[in-house]
């Protein structure tokens, strides 16, 4: 029941498997919004992998990345949807 063994043999493979499934949705997604949702979830799963890796290597500094990644995920989602709406807006009739 060592914590490093659980991280290596359970947590990181599960997260990698979920990343694989998100990548399948990212390549397959029928519309553009599906791909944006998949990218958003991809960054959030990356935060999870970084936190598990920080526990594995006993280094606190890696946690600092998570705030930046959360910020980038939020801003990219907002920007993507904002300009996608602008592109579809039909003001001039």
């Amino acid at each position: 029941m060592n914590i490093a063994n659980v991280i290596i043999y359970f947590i990181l493979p599960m997260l990698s498997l979920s990343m694989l499934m998100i990548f399948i949705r990212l390549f397959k997604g029928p519309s553009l919004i599906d791909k944006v949702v998949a990218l958003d979830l991809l960054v959030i799963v990356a935060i999870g992998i970084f936190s598990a890796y920080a526990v594995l290597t006993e280094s606190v500094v890696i946690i600092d990345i998570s705030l930046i990644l959360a910020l980038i995920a939020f801003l990219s989602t907002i920007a993507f949807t904002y300009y996608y709406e602008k592109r579809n807006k039909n003001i001039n009739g």
Partner: protein
Amino acid sequence: MENLVALIFLVIGTLFIFIASIGLLKMPDIYLRMSASTIGATFGVSSMLLGVAIYFGQMNLLLHVTGVIIFLILTVPVGAHMMGRISHIIGLKMWDKTVVDDLKGKYNEETHGFEGYDKDDESKS
């Protein structure tokens, strides 16, 4: 003991993220996909970060992690709302077993503003 609590939090977060990605892959509809991914990912990552903070047991790390969790809880629903709004506006197909669409006809077609009532629905006005 602290390691065991941290491990339980990490495993719960991992399962949440795994279920969220299964939902993202297998759900039939963009709206259901968005619901699964948003809820699962928010609570999964929050749980994993709490596990990390419990494992290291430092006060400044706990504050840092709390900031990240509050930021995630504030911003992920905003992004999901934006995506659901634009996908309803551009008219993505719902699942064919969906029974009711409350937003039908309530967005202005030209300006994308929210009207709050259905102009074509005569019975309510």
